[in-house]
C-alpha cells in the first residue's frame, strides 16, 4: 500500500469526505499558486493534468487548458520539475494520457513523477488490460495507478478492476467526457456497484461542477473530483485568492 492510498483510506475511515480538485499544469503562469490556494481551501489531494495534444476523454474546457499549456511551451519534464520544487502539502495525482508516459519511457516517467512529489497517476486511456507493464514499474516507485469505472462497466469487469485498483477508484458519473454535467448521471449506481467489490475510497468524477453536486456525491461516495468547473474559471482569469474562495464551498 502506497502513500496515496494510505492517506485516502485513513481519511475515509475517519468518515471525512474528500475534495479533489483538478488543474491543468501550465495552463496559466501562476498555476502553482492556484494549487496552493486549493490546498489552503481544504483540498484532500490535487489532480494535476499534464497536457497532451489529443485528450480523448476531455471536453472542451480541459482541451482549451491543454492547448494553453502546450502553447506556453510546457513539457512533462518541465512541469514535473516545477511541481518538485514546490511543497504542496497534500497528495498529488497526475492525470495525463498514456503516450506521455510511453514516450518518456516507463522507468524515466516513474522517476520524474516521484521526483515531482507525485503519488498517483490517472491514465484514462490505459485500462487494466494494457496497464500491466506500467503498473509494474509504478509499483517499484511507490506510485498508485488509479483505475476508472464507468457506468457502462459490467459487474464482472468491476470486480476485476476492483481487484487491481490502487489509491482510490475513480467512478465516472456519466458516459461522457470531462465537463459534461447536463444530466443527473449515474454516480450513485456506479459507486454502489464498486462498493460491492472494493473497500477502497471511491470518488465521483466527470460532471461534478457545483458545490451542490459535490454535496450530493458526498452522500454516497467518499469524495468528489472537480475539474472543468474550476479550470474554466482559472482560464477566465480567476485569481488564486478567488480560487481558494471558490474551492471552499466544495469542502464539507
Amino acid at each position: 500500500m502506497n502513500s496515496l492510498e494510505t492517506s485516502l483510506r485513513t481519511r475515509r475511515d475517519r468518515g471525512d469526505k474528500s475534495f479533489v480538485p483538478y488543474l491543468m499544469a501550465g495552463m496559466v503562469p501562476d498555476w502553482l499558486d492556484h494549487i496552493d490556494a486549493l490546498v489552503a481551501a481544504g483540498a484532500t489531494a490535487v489532480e494535476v493534468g499534464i497536457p497532451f495534444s489529443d485528450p480523448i476523454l476531455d471536453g472542451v474546457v480541459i482541451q482549451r487548458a491543454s492547448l494553453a499549456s502546450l502553447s506556453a511551451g510546457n513539457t512533462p519534464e518541465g512541469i514535473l520539475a516545477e511541481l518538485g520544487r514546490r511543497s504542496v502539502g497534500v497528495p498529488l495525482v497526475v492525470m495525463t494520457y498514456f503516450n506521455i508516459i510511453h514516450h518518456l519511457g516507463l522507468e524515466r516517467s516513474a522517476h520524474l513523477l516521484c521526483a515531482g512529489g507525485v503519488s498517483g497517476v490517472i491514465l484514462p486511456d490505459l485500462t487494466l488490460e494494457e496497464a500491466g507493464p506500467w503498473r509494474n514499474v509504478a509499483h517499484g516507485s511507490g506510485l498508485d495507478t488509479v483505475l476508472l469505472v464507468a457506468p457502462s462497466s459490467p459487474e464482472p469487469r468491476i470486480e476485476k478492476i476492483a481487484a487491481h485498483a490502487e489509491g482510490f477508484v475513480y467512478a465516472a458519473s456519466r458516459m461522457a467526457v470531462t465537463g459534461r454535467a447536463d444530466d443527473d448521471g449515474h454516480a450513485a449506481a456506479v459507486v454502489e456497484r464498486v462498493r460491492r467489490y472494493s473497500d477502497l475510497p471511491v470518488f465521483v468524477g466527470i460532471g461534478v461542477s457545483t458545490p451542490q453536486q459535490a454535496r450530493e456525491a458526498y452522500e454516497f461516495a467518499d469524495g468528489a473530483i472537480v475539474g472543468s468547473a474550476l479550470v474554466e474559471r482559472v482560464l477566465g482569469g480567476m485569481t488564486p485568492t478567488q480560487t481558494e474562495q471558490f474551492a471552499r464551498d466544495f469542502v464539507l
Partner: protein
Amino acid sequence: MTQTVRVMKDPGDDGRFGEFGGRFVPEALIPACEELDVAFRDAWADPIFREEFHHVLREFGGRPTPVTYLARLSEQIGVHVYAKREDLAHTGSHKINNVVGQTLLTRRMGKTRVIAETGAGQHGVATATAAARLGLECTVYMGELDTQRQSLNVFRMELLGARVVPVTSGSRTLKDAVNEAMREWVTCVDDTHYCLGSVMGPHPFPWMVREFQSIIGHEAAQQLHDRGVGTPDFVVACVGGGSNAAGIFAGFADSSARLVGVEAAGGAAIAGGQPGVLHGMRSMLLQSESGQIEEAESISAGLDYPGIGPEHAHLASIGRATYVGVGDEPVLEALQLLSRLEGLIPALESAHAVAWITREAGRDIPLGSTVLLNLSGRGDKDVAQVREILRGRE
C-alpha cells in the same frame, strides 16, 4: 525475399500485432470494444453474414473491381504494372468495402446509428452512403478546417442524410475528428457504432477493417492467377491509416511478393515516427520531442494522418513489408502521367503508389518485374486542388 513467417492472421483477444496494436481507450468504451470484438468474430465466422457482405459489395458496391493492365505505362517504364481498380468501387474508393461491412455489423448488433470521423470526406461519404442504404442514422465528425476545404463533401454527406459536425478542437483536422468521434462515442455506445475509417484504433478495429478490406487482395490474387500472371513481384499501395494497403497485402501475405507501402513523405509514420499510443492503439506515430502528436503534412488529405495502422508497424518491424515515402512533387507528376497515358486520373493518395513505382522502375524494381498497384481511389475529388496548384505555377 522469401517469407516463412505466417502474417496477417487473427491478432487474438488482445489485438496484438507483435508489439503493436492493443486497446487503449477510456474504460467507458471497453464494453463496446469487447461487444464489437465478439460480434465481429461471430459474424465473420458466419457464412450467412459473409455472403451478405459479398452480396452487398457485388450488388451495390460494384465488386469485383477489375485489374487493368497499364500497357502504356508499363512500356514506358519497363515493368509490368497491373492496377487493382478500387477507383471503380461505389463512392470512388476502397472505403466502401469497410463501411459496408461495418454497417451490416451495426445492424446485426441491433444498433441503429453510426458515427464516423472523416478527413477530406471520403470515409464520411462512404459511411453516409452505406448508412443511407440500411436506414441507419449517421453523424460524421470532420475537422472544421476540413469542412471548409472540402465543403462539397459536406454537402454530399448531407444529401445522403448524414449530419456533419465540424470539430473545432486541436488542429481542426482528421486527427481531431477521430478524437471527437471517440469522445462522442462514449456518450452513445448503447445504440451507436463507431465506424472507423482505417486499420487503426483500438482492437478489434485494425483487424476487422483489414478483414473487410482483404477482399481487395483476395480478388486481385485470383484475378492475376486467372489471367496467368501468377504472383506479382511487388504489391504496392499508398498508406494513410493503411486500410487499402492492408486489404491488398492480405491477398499476398503468404506469397513471395514484396509488399510496399507508400507514405506521404510529410506523414511518414514508419520512417519518421516513433512508437506511441494514440486513438486507442500502440503504433508508429509522428511525435514531438516531448511526446505530443504532430501534424502530418501532405498534398493528399487522405494521407494526412500522423499514425499508421498497428499491423503495418508490425509488418515493417519484422521486415515483411517495406514502407517508403514520396514527396508532393513526384505525386503530382505521377497523377498527370497516369491520366495522360492510361486514361485513369488517380486519387492523390493512390498517385503516391504510382510515383514510387515510376521512380523505382529499373532501380529497386528490376526491369521486367510484375507490379500490382492498388489504385485505391479516383481523382475526381482532387482535380480542383490539382488545378489550383498547377495554375499557381504557370
